Each structure stands twice: as C-alpha cells, then as structure tokens.
C-alpha cells in the first residue's frame, strides 16, 4: 500500500530500471504492468495529450520534467476531416510515462477522462512519485538510455527501438487524402503529427499523405512536405531518394524535424547525434543574418551538420543555446526545412508563419 496521497492509495509500487543499472522507485498508474523502451525527457510544462500522441516518441519512455501531470485530464477523441482533432495521432505513441506527481483528480471543461484511464485504455504504464529532475540529469549526462518500467509481479526484457526502422512503423501503410484544394501537397509521413495536416488544409491545400518510402515519381503535385518522425534519419534512404527526385523536378519542398534531416541528407549534407538533444518547448532559434528570433518546440537527438552543407545551400536558422543548425534553405528559395516544429502542439506558435511561406511557394 502506498501513502503517496489520499487518492493514490490504490496505486502499487513500481520502478524504472535504466541500462546502467540505476533504479528509480515510484507508483504505477495507467496500465498496471511492465514496459520497455528508450528513456527520453521533455521539459515542456503543458501539452501531455499532444506529446504522448506525437509519433516521434514511438518506442520511447517519456520523462516529464514538469512535476505536475494530469491536471486537466484528457479531451475526447474527435474526428475532423478524417483526422483526430484533439491529438497528434490516433493513439498513444510512448511505451511509458514517468512523472513526479500524477494528479489523480483532474479539472477541465474539455476533459473526458483521466490520464490514468487513457493510459489504461492504450495499455501504457505510467510511473509517478519519481525524482524526475535527478533522472533527467542522469539522462542528460549519459545520453538517452534504455529503460524498463516493472512491477513486482511482471518484468520485461530490454527493448531498443533504435534497432528498428521506426519511421516505417510510425508511417501509414497506404496513401490517404485530406481536404480539397486546387493545389496538392504531398506529405511524406515519417510519423507525421496531425497538426501539420491541419495547417496545410487551413491554407486551402489538398493533402495527400503517403508512406515514408512511397514512389512519388508518377505523382503530380505542387508541393512536398516531409514530416517529423522518430529515430535516425539515416535509416530512411528510400525517402532521401524520393526527396532528391522531387528537388530535381523543382517542386517546392518543406521539411520539419526528421523531414529537415532528410532534406539535408538529400542535399548531400551529413547528420550526427547531439550530445544534449533538444527536448523542450522553449528552444530559442535565430534566423541567420537577421535579428529575428523565435521560441520553438523541439524533440530531436540528431542534427544537421552545418559545415557539410553543399554550395547553393545555406543555414537558415541556428539554435541560440548551442549554435547547432535549426534550418536550411536552398538559394533558389524553393527547398527549405526546419529542425523545430512550426506546427507546435504542444508548444509556442511563433513559427506558424512558415506554413504561410510554404503556401506562397506552392501557390507561386
């Protein structure tokens, strides 16, 4: 029995074990069972329903550094133009959730159920009562590690999602079409967040969402959007080839996050793993050559190497904290990408105007 607080008395104890052998004790909510994955953290203070459904977190156990989680419950699942309106994909993507202080009681006009219930619905365990700051400092120092949530009567083997092609898992199986419009934007789904599609539709485009390795050569379209997604970009060679071909056809291209890294690879540049990944909603970026700064939402462990950019390509944005690359642009102005998330959800909407820029290129 736990004394964690009056309402959590029913929660059982559980623990998180990391690859290096360290153990963090807590209480289990959500699914009362075990789960394994790669442990990552995010320092955003709001947006857990959005974050947990972000396909970029596929295969990962997420640590929230903001201690109070679950406060405003979970909104209802609702379809709009064939898409989940209140979530970034149709299901929870994480393998587990680690928090300091899960709020058993929630309060919000839009909430339908508790986070606990929602995690149970999707068979995902959560762990509360963990010193998430200590855990985060450890992850920061040693890079991301594998980890597993276990309870007394259920243990589990290590699971390394990075051995798989996560993009292939996160992507859809067959093309899908959303909205109506004179112009068509193809979205390569590497694990796309719904809000990217919403933003394109809002600007009057028909969106054709295709699997990550879909052959675009036979398709007629006016713009290419490459989505965010989980894992290492170098596992997506087929996608890189498709992008190269689209560039050759001189069709405008816009990449986000994984899409940014893939565009860089397509351009002939290199990517590498960061010492400290960017995992927050407060990443400051500067538009190169200007005094224009944005606060952005980010979640990535790989980055584009600025120095490897071929001629005709230039850095567009850089990160103000560690000077790493945050965007690239071709001198023609027709191919561009950003490491951060202009679609936000969760996080600040400072960069939303980039969808307008892309729309202008497509409508050109």
């Amino acid at each position, binding site marked *: 029995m736990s004394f964690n*607080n009056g309402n959590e008395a029913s929660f059982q104890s559980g623990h998180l074990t990391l690859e290096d052998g360290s153990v963090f004790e807590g209480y289990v909510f959500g699914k009362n069972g075990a789960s394994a994955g790669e442990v990552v953290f995010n320092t955003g203070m709001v947006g857990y329903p959005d974050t947990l459904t972000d396909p970029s977190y596929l295969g990962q156990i997420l640590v929230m550094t903001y201690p109070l989680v679950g406060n405003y419950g979970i909104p209802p699942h609702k379809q709009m133009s064939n898409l989940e309106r209140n979530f970034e994909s149709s299901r929870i993507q994480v393998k587990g959730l680690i928090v300091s202080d899960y*709020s058993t009681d929630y309060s*919000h*006009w839009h909430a339908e159920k508790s986070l606990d219930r929602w995690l149970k619905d999707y068979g995902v365990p959560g762990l509360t009562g963990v010193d*998430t700051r200590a855990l985060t400092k450890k992850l920061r120092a040693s890079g991301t590690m594998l980890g597993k949530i276990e309870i007394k009567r259920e243990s589990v083997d290590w699971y390394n999602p990075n051995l798989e092609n996560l993009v292939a898992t996160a992507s859809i199986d067959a093309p899908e079409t959303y909205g109506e419009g004179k112009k068509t934007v193809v979205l390569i789904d590497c694990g796309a967040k719904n809000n990217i599609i919403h933003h394109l539709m809002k600007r009057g485009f028909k969106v054709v969402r295709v699997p990550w390795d879909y052959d675009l050569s036979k398709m007629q379209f006016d713009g290419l959007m490459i989505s965010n997604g989980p894992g290492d970009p170098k596992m997506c060679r087929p996608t890189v080839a498709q992008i190269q071909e689209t560039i050759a056809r001189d069709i405008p291209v816009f990449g986000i996050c994984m899409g940014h890294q893939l565009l860089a690879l397509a351009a002939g540049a290199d990517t590498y793993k960061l010492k400290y990944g960017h995992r927050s909603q407060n990443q*400051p970026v500067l538009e190169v050559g200007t*005094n224009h700064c944005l606060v952005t939402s980010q979640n990535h462990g790989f980055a584009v190497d600025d120095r490897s950019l071929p001629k005709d390509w230039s850095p567009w944005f850089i990160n103000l*904290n560690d000077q790493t690359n945050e965007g690239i642009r071709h001198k023609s102005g027709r191919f561009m990408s950003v490491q951060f998330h202009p679609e936000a959800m969760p996080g*600040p909407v400072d960069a939303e105007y980039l969808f307008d820029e892309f729309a202008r290129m497509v409508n050109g």
Partner: protein
Amino acid sequence: MDIKNNEIIKPEKVVVLGSAALKIGEAGEFDYSGSQAIKALKEEGIHTVLINPNIATIQTSEHLADKVYFLPVTAEFVEKVIAKEKPDGILLSFGGQTALNCGLELSRKGVFEKYNVQVLGSPIQAVIDTEDREIFAQRLDEIGASSARSQAAESVDEAIKIAESLGFPVIIRIAYALGGLGSGVCRSREEVETLARKALSYTPQILVEEYLEGWKEIEYEVMRDQYNNCITICNMENFDPMGIHTGESIVVAPSQTLSNREYHLLREVAIKVIRHLGIVGECNIQYALDPKSEQYRIIEVNARLSRSSALASKATGYPLAFIAAKLALGYGLHNLPNAITRVTTAFFEPSLDYVVVKIPRWDLKKFRMVSREIGSSMKSVGEVMAIGRKFEEALQKALRMLETGAQGLVANSGFEFEDLEKELINPTEERVFAIVEAMESGMDVDNIHRLSHIDKWFLYKIANVVEIEKQLKKSTGDKLPPALLKTAKQMGFSDKQIAIITGSTQRSVREWRHRHNIRPFIRQIDTLGAEYPAQTNYLYLSYNGIADEIEYPIDRSVMILGSGCYRIGSSVEFDWCCVNAGYALRKMGYHTVMLNYNPETVSTDYDEFDKLFFDEIRLETVLEIYHKLKTIGVVVSMGGQIPNNLAMELDEAGLHVLGTSPDKIDSAENRDSFSQMLDDMNIKQPQWKRLHTLDAAKDFANDVGYPVLVRPSYVLSGAAMAVAANDEQLSQYLQRAVKISPDHPTVISKFLENAKEIEMDAVAQNGEIVAYAISEHVENAGVHSGDATLVIPPQRTYLETIRQVREISTKIAEALHINGPFNIQFIAKENEVMVIECNLRASRSFPFVSKIMGQNFIDIATRAIMGHRVEKNEARLFELDYVGVKAPQFSFTRLQGADPTLGVEMASTGEVACLGNDFEEAFLKALLSVGFKMPVKSVLLSTGSIESKAEMLEATRLLMKQGIKFYATEGTAKFMQSNGIPAEKLYWPLEEGQPNTIDYIKAGKIDLVVNIPKNSQKEELTNGYLIRRTAVDFDVPLITNRQVAMRFAQTLSRIGVEDLQIKSWSEYLEK
C-alpha cells in the same frame, strides 16, 4: 526614442524614478526592479541619478546610483532635478505606478522636450495606450483581441446608464490606478452610485465593465526588444477566480489547469498585443478565461515592471528587471547573456520543474472598523512565495511563511467561521482555511466550487492534505509509520504540524524523522528543467527528491536569516540590513548564505549572496540547511522580529547563533525579565507590573492611575499593544494580549502623557558601544515608533536628556554584553529619562540613521558580530549641519472603513526620509513625499479637548498670518473666534445642519484636515471618525496628531515649496 535605427543607445546620464514609500499596492518589489535597472545601467558605464525618498531601500545605497535625491517623486521635483542634472535619458517603468504617473505628467508638461531627455524603453504613447481604458480597448480591437465589454464614464449618471446597459453585476475600475484602487463590483444601481462617486473624486474618468464572475484569472509576463523579438517569461494562474484582485489572490506559477491550446492561445495574444502597442522592455498582461470554453478577455496591460513581474522573476530565476533595462538601451534579447547558465542568451523562456505558490499577507486585524472582505481592490501589505515539487507542499509552506499563526492548511487553531457558506461566497483573508473547515465538516468539492468558483483542481489538492491529516490522526507521535511520515513531509507538513496532529512534540517528530533518515534535499532552480548543465546558487528544500544538488559542507559559510514577508512593522528596511550584512560578510571573506522567502526583496536576488535558499525561516528548515552546509553560525539580528524570535530555539537545538547571545536576547524581549533587570540597575522605567490576575491588574492600574499601557512580549509593531483608559478597556485589551502571545508574559505599565520619545540606534562589541545615533520623535509618546516622525540629529531634546540616554545605553550594552546592533526606546519628561523598550537586533531606523550619518551601521555591526575588531566611531551626530526627517506613509485610502488615527499599535505601511538644511525643510520635503499637497489655502480644524485647543492656538495664529481660510467644527470654531481667529463653522457629520463638514471635504473645498481625536481608543462610529474617513476617502491630507499639526503650521509660516533645495544625498554629506 527612435527604435528604427537599431542601435544601442548609450546615454551619458540617466534619471531613474523610484516608487517612494511602500504602500498597499506598491511595496518592496520596486526596490528590486529599480536596483536591477541601476545595476544594468552601471554595467554600461552610464551615470545614474535616482530620485526616491524611500531611504530604507537598497537602491538608495551608496554603492548603486551615482547620485541619490531623497525627494518626492512628483513632476515638480523631478523637473527641478532634471534642470539641475541635465540627464539625456530617463527610466519611468521601474518605480511602479508612482513613477509612471509622474512620467506621464512630465510628458504632458513637455518637460522631456524642454530639457531634451529621452524616455528609454516603452514610448510614452504605449504607456498612454495601456493606461487610458478607452484607448486601450480601441487598440485591442484593432488586432481583434478581446477585452471586457466596457465603457468609460465621467459622471455618476453616465456610470449608472452604462451599468444598466451592460447588465448587473458590473465592475467599476479607475484609470491610472495602482493596485485596483477604488474599484469594486456593483450588483445594483445604488452600489454603482456610491462607488462611482467615490472613484470620481480621485480621477476624472472611470470604467464600467462587464463582470466575469467565476472566470479564471491568468497573467503572462512578456518581454519585447526593439527587433520585435518577444518572449513570455512565465504565466501565472490565480487560485481565486475573477473578482479578486491579483494582488489579493493566491497565485500559482506556472498555470495548472490550462491545456496546451489555452496556454498558447493566451501567449500568442500577449505577444500580439505587446507588439501592437510597441512596448520595449517588460509588460504584464492579465486575462480572464472562461472556465467552460476558450473564450478570454484581456483585463489589463501594465507597461512597466510590476508586482507580478517581480514574482515571475523570482519564480523562474529570470532577471526580468535587469534585462528590461538593457532592452531599453536598445539591446536585443539574443545579444544578452542568460545570467543563470552564462552560456546561453536572454532570449529563452524558462521551463520550471517545480511549482510556485504566492500568498498575499494582510494585516487587516490591525485596523479598527476595516472591512475584511477581499475583492477587486488591494488591501494586502506583502506576499510570500513558496517553492515545491507538489502543489500541496508549496501551498502549506506558503501558509506558514505568512507568520499569521497557521501551521499549514490543517492543524490550525484560531480560525473560526460563523457562516462557512458566506465565507466561501464572500471571501476574507482567511478563505483558504474556510475551505479546509468546509471539507472537514463534510462539504464536497463540487459544493465548495459552486460557492467559491475556485477551480476544482485546487480544491482536490487541498482535499489531499485533509486526507493525510486524517491518516496522521490515527497514529500517535512515536509510532508514526515512516512511510506515512515521509508522505506527509512530501505534502508539505511541518514537524510541528505533524506533532500537533499526532499529539507529540516538534522535537520528537524531528528525532523520529531523522532516525528514519527522512531528510529534505537541496534542489536547484536553473530556468531550464535540467535540460542543460547550469551552475546556479538559487536553491530550495524539498522532500520530493532523492538527491542533493550542491556539494557540502561549505567552508567559512555564514547563514543570514532574512526578514520574511513584508507586513506592517517589518518591510524593506530589514531587507536593507540583511543585504548589507551580506556585503560585509563577503568583504570579510565569508561564504554568504541567505534564507528568505519574500519575492519582493533584493535579498532574494540570487547574485547578492553566494547561496540563496528560497524557503521557510523556521527552526526545522534552518536546522537542515545548517547541518548540511556546516555553517559557522547563523545571523539572526538583521531580519527583524522573525529571525530574532528564533534565537532561543536555535540555541536550544545546538546551533551557533552569531552576535549577542540568545539568552540575552531573551532577557531583553521578555518584558518581565527586562523590567526586572532595569530595576536592578536603577534605570528608570514607567511603573510596571506583570499580569497574574485581572483583579491584580486593575488594582495596579488604579494605583498608578489610568491610562496604562498593555504590552505582550515578543511582538513586532506593537501588535495587541494598547492604552487603557479605564477598567473595562483594561480587561478587554488584556484578553487580546494573552491571545496573541500566550507563551510569553504580558506586562502593564503606567502610560505617561505628554512625554517625548527618543530612540537610540547603536552597535556594540563585547558590551561596549562602538557606534550610535540618537533621534527624537516629533509626536509625543503614545504613537508607535514606526508611525512616528523621526528627526536626526535631535532638535528639541535637552543636552542633559541626551547625556542620560547615552549613559543608560552604555549600561545596558554592558549588562547584556551586546555584540551587534541594538535599539533602545526612551521617553523623557522634564529631563527624567526612562526606558520603554530594548531590541537586541537592527531596528527599522538603521538604514535611516546610517544614511543620514553617512556611516553604515550594518557594516559595523556585522564586523562586531563576527568578532572582527571594530574601532570606536567618534560620534559626529551633533556636528551634522543638516537635518534628516523620517515620515510615515499610511495606506488608509485602501483600507475601506479603517479609522485613520495613530496609536501604540503600528498602522503605517512605509516611510520616507528627506534631508534639509534645517528641520522645516526636511520635514516639508518628507510630508510632500508621503502625499501632502501644497499650497494649503483652507484648513478644517477640530482640535479635540480644551487643553489641546489651547495648545493649538499659537499654531493656528501662524496659519492665519499666511492668509489661510479656516473652517472648524462647533467647539473649535467658538474657541477660535473667542481668541480672535476667524473660522467658519461647519456642522458635524451626524448633525443635520448645513454647511456640513462632509460636504465641504467631498466638494474639494478643504486642502487640509486637522482632526485631533479626544480619545484615541474609542471604537464606535463617531463624528470624528466620519471626518477622518471622508478626508482619506477623498484624498485630502489629514493630520491627527497635535505635535505634527503644530510643527506643520510653524513650517508653513517659515518656508514654502519654492524654498526647498534640490540637493543630492552626497551634496549634504560632503559639506
């Protein structure tokens, strides 16, 4: 300022306006913001000139601004300083509404153009756009941002019409107001009429607005640079819904009940608004958010540093005011370093991995007749901030920090509610305890929410604490299951609170806890949720963790206990003492550790000390930090009464208390033993007696003769002190005194009338005085020293009296073997000198005497405390060829219904001090600094008893020679006429007749009200009360003390405003 050229502006000389005396609505937060602004300018090599008569502030210290003017922050005086100093820039947004209003007036008068002074930061037009309600609403409309439906009214009739068209309830607000002054909710036509009439007496324009009952109240702190880059430093959510001023609300940061969409919707609107208005620097935006949809309304924008920005700064670690000053010079946010990480830039939004709770502190019980309901206008006098990893933890910590007797949410005694439902609907300052009581009596969260409109999430959290209390009740102290104990600690229960619930003692709970190794951990605040490594010395304690984040022990570390929450009797002056003690310790090579929890202070700026612990100042906390850090010792004599009261407890727990030994502190604080000691030493004091029984007390009182003074021990600002004029009052006051300080003896003493009061502020080392200052009170004894007007050097005290004061002080310093600062209060009558009180700690007048004498008493005291040999300073007290006068600032205007009179219990919220070549000059400057208005052409007199009338005669004659028109109430008018002074008789408020005093005050026909109460203890509604209250409500200067009235008359007869010299502090000192 031309912000298009994108260049850094480097003015040579910049004037910074301060916020003058602390008052309700404008407190210590502006010392923090002004100090940071000055630091930011100094770093650029800019010469700074500060105008602020608040002598107790850090910003008016010698090491900050290059020049300080202790002058009123009014257009008239600021213009004169500008004419003299010829600055090329001015900062208006770091001194609260006072500075901003002054700046607007200077702008209207064309002063900036005339002297070619550039307003740095937000352009004046942006300020006007936010301050004028109608323009503001228009500007928001332009970008489609929603504001509350409202209309401006310039007359009462107009206000009623608008209210009826909007539909009731409505809220009335006034433009250019600080702290929501004069605003309120009206549910009927009559209420609109009353409030509108009152509000229109301060301001030509009021705003009638839809009242968004039950909506959430959310704030964002936004910064913008000249490149149009914007960030929000943090957002905050009010625990209390709309209708309760944000300064009166419990506030939590970051917001807790907002979804990502709501959070970012409001953030985006905030940025849009600040860009549209063209603000450069910092601004605060307040919203109402519908709890049932995503509808919002913008309530207001403050284009300046504010109380909320100070809170945001402390809550996140982001140095808002410092950065805002840099932005005013044209820097981009991305050009400035992040002061915490040092490797990143100021363009970032802090990520918190803790929760912050702010609670206001009220002192309403100190005032007679005041309404205790909290609402849309501010009444609180200070605030506390607590940090935790759980909301319950932070809330319970914060409630204890208030020092109002609460142990946390539960285990309290002394909160009684006659009608719980009413308390939940119309909250007072004790509402949070009413919620607990409602829960304990079985009311469910839904019902409490329905009555109070407080979001259920907050209520659930309170219910968690009530539940833990229930579990604790099942255990007794010694058998407390360790797991439950740990949970309780994680939920913010203190050892003492647990002891009360389980029927144990604080000590045995602590020992049990230590035995099970349940200890708090030292946590860091790093602004970025541990995403990157950051070296920070900004710390707090929490049981919700598994590791400490700093290394210890720390060599040569000394802990200084701060002054806690600002409240009547303890405010910025003690922060000045603490900060200066820190400087002195650093100079001596110690590692300084500050413990404080007041977000409105400079002492909680993390760069002022080597370590800052933002946590409770209690035995439990001090003990844990002390043992981890292994500090040399604890300084308790700088932060006023809170640390001073801890001295004995710390000593008993085996901690090393630095300076005067705790048992000596105890013998000075304990009225009984102190009085005994004086008797033994043959030092005179008013006849006294310790209370044993009421009958004995009555016998004593009748024996020495009424009036007598009732004094509890270990209290600050004369809490529950009272003068009793008869048996009935005596028994009433005694009961109150026993209630407020039950563990310590209450003493009654003979109250001497018409005696002078004198103060000795001094420092001693090993019992020998090494520095001292003597000041005299303008008011006769009976007015609390914190409310008195102090003069240094003494002007009207006999040399023989001074000699005796020195002699007695020397004896006491020796007897108590004082090491460090102390203060003794004396009364003198015809050269007979008696001791009335002694405190073995820095007093509230230390900054005043230090700054007037040009000698830092805290620096000297700190060296004495640490055992560094201090040279005896030759007193230059009587060689000063200038005079310093300290005057109190009252905030009665904000305390609806309170009777604005002076007594032995302190009522002022702040103070100013000014310098002059003589008493009159310094006195007049000081009065103008606390809101007196010149010229005085008409005075309403009602001068009390016949003796009082006679005494006032001479002063009245002096005023007559100035051609002043007199109005007087019946007796006073008759008396004046019979003495050849023409006075027009006005009827008393409760008389039917015309012309009536009240009408004349309301009509603005009277420039000054002199009302000397016959008996300062009378509590019923009287004519005198109505006159005083009306004067305050209609912003007419009021004098209720005979000595002040006489000195004021003499001053007016000698000098006018034009004679007041514009001289800086250093010009006086260097002479």
